[in-house]
């Protein structure tokens, strides 16, 4: 079963964490692949919501944008964007907010705004979009990001979306009753925040990945749980369904 890519492992690990009863606010890219894979495997009936207003959507191919026609065509209904952010996200209806980002720190705060100073950025990134409030208002947050020394950094130049802030009970002190990031799915491992300090801790390594590899792809000294497990390798069925989804998607987007 070595015939899978790190990105596939990341997506499959994230998909497994979703339940049929979840109501997911889905970002584009790896989150969208993971949520739809879950829907097509063990979590039939899961509710997927995209910030474009589509509620309970069941796309046959992955959308390129969060507002592809496919999402609306297959949705239970589609509401306006103000309503989406007011009644559905702020209203507390989302169980899992699914985010990615350009950069993350040890407390799972995310940056998608700038690298360098805000006023004279070295790299201007797209910005927050829905993420700041997805991070605050979803029941809990899952993050998917490929590891690397530019992405997993000691200190963020800009906090776009709050994870656990400075750690500990920082969220609670700011009045947030939601859990914040509870899992980070990477291409090398799965992390969870420590129950006390909220610092990200490696809880399982993907098959064949070593601690040194993970540490090499992260700029802060990583914590590992006492006995990090090995992430179960993708099953043949998971891989087949994910690849089939990607193939359908590629064909559709090239059209």
């Amino acid at each position, binding site marked *: 079963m070595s015939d899978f890519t790190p990105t596939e492992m990341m997506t499959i690990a994230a998909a497994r964490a979703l339940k049929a009863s979840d109501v997911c606010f889905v970002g584009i890219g790896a989150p969208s692949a993971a949520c739809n894979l879950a829907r097509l495997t063990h979590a039939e009936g899961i509710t997927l919501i995209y910030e474009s207003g589509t509620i309970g959507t069941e796309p046959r191919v992955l959308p390129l944008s969060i507002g592809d026609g496919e999402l609306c065509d297959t949705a239970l209904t589609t509401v306006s964007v103000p309503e989406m952010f007011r009644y559905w996200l702020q209203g507390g209806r989302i169980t899992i907010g699914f985010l990615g980002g350009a950069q993350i720190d040890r407390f799972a705060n995310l940056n998608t705004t700038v690298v360098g100073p805000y006023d004279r950025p070295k790299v201007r990134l797209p910005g927050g979009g829905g993420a700041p409030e997805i991070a605050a*208002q979803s029941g809990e947050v899952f993050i998917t990001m490929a590891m690397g020394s530019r992405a997993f950094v000691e200190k963020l130049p800009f906090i776009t979306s709050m994870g656990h802030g400075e750690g500990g009970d920082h969220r609670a002190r700011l009045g947030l009753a939601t859990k914040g990031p509870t899992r980070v799915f990477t291409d090398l491992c799965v992390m969870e925040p420590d129950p006390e300090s909220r610092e990200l801790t490696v809880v399982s390594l993907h098959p064949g990945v070593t601690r040194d590899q993970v540490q090499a792809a992260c700029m802060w000294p990583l914590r590992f749980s006492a006995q990090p497990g090995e992430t179960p390798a993708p099953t043949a069925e998971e891989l087949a369904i994910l690849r089939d989804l990607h193939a359908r998607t590629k064909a559709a987007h090239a059209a």
Partner: protein
Amino acid sequence: MAQFLSLEDAIRACVHDGDTVAMEGFTHLIPHAAGHEIIRQGRRDLALVRMTPDLIYDQLIGMGCARALRFSWGGNPGVGSLHRFRDAVENAWPRPLAIEEHSHAAMANAYEAGAANLPFATLRGYIGTDLPKVNPNIRSVTCPFTGEVLAAVAAIRPDVAIIHAQRADRHGNVALEGIVGVQREAVLAAKRSVVTVEEIVEDFGPRSPNAVILPSWTVTAISHVPGGAYPSYAHGYYSRANAFYIAWDAIARDRDTFLAWMDANVMKKTPADFAVHARPAALAAAS
């Protein structure tokens, strides 16, 4: 009551140098033809407003039409950067761009407040983020019942809103459906509005009693521009040209490539050239 005008006349009448302009459409129904017309007419010093600047604003910014941008997500969805937007922010090319940056929730609420004629919107927003440190227009209000402190943002009240919709009837009522985004709010919040449509029909006919409709008396000008959302899409008419969004990355990455593309595909074209994209999705799929 809405006037039926050519797109040239509608833009000339409604969009002036220095205006605050909101062109909306959340992935769906983005008014690309209207954006091209603004570029052709050489409008300058526009203060642009849009949740997701997208290709339409990449083009306006790259052609030097804008002095400012209020936005919440400036990328090419699923593809990567908006290179012209980045070049303006990182290198002030072709001119500096003043940005006022928000989250989607704040922008959506600000449009909603504008439509509701409120001076500000209240949201549970921005908690623990750095955005309030760089945007002085993110403020707070205190609940007079619970004492909670919430985020406040100024309502969006543009001089002109521009949207694309599926249909107008002969009275000038406008119907849209599918992903409706913040378009109704943008039109209701604005002093003037331009709507480009795929079709003008005698009557909307049988429909949901709760159909999404802008009455004629909320719209300034309607222009019949079939295909006018391309490479965005019109639900029930044609699909999103995802391949063009992917291709845009290479076009926009380089200033000269960009300018050449704009010259050939915008400056030398007319609104009627969008009609080629208007082939109904069903027909296109069958061919």
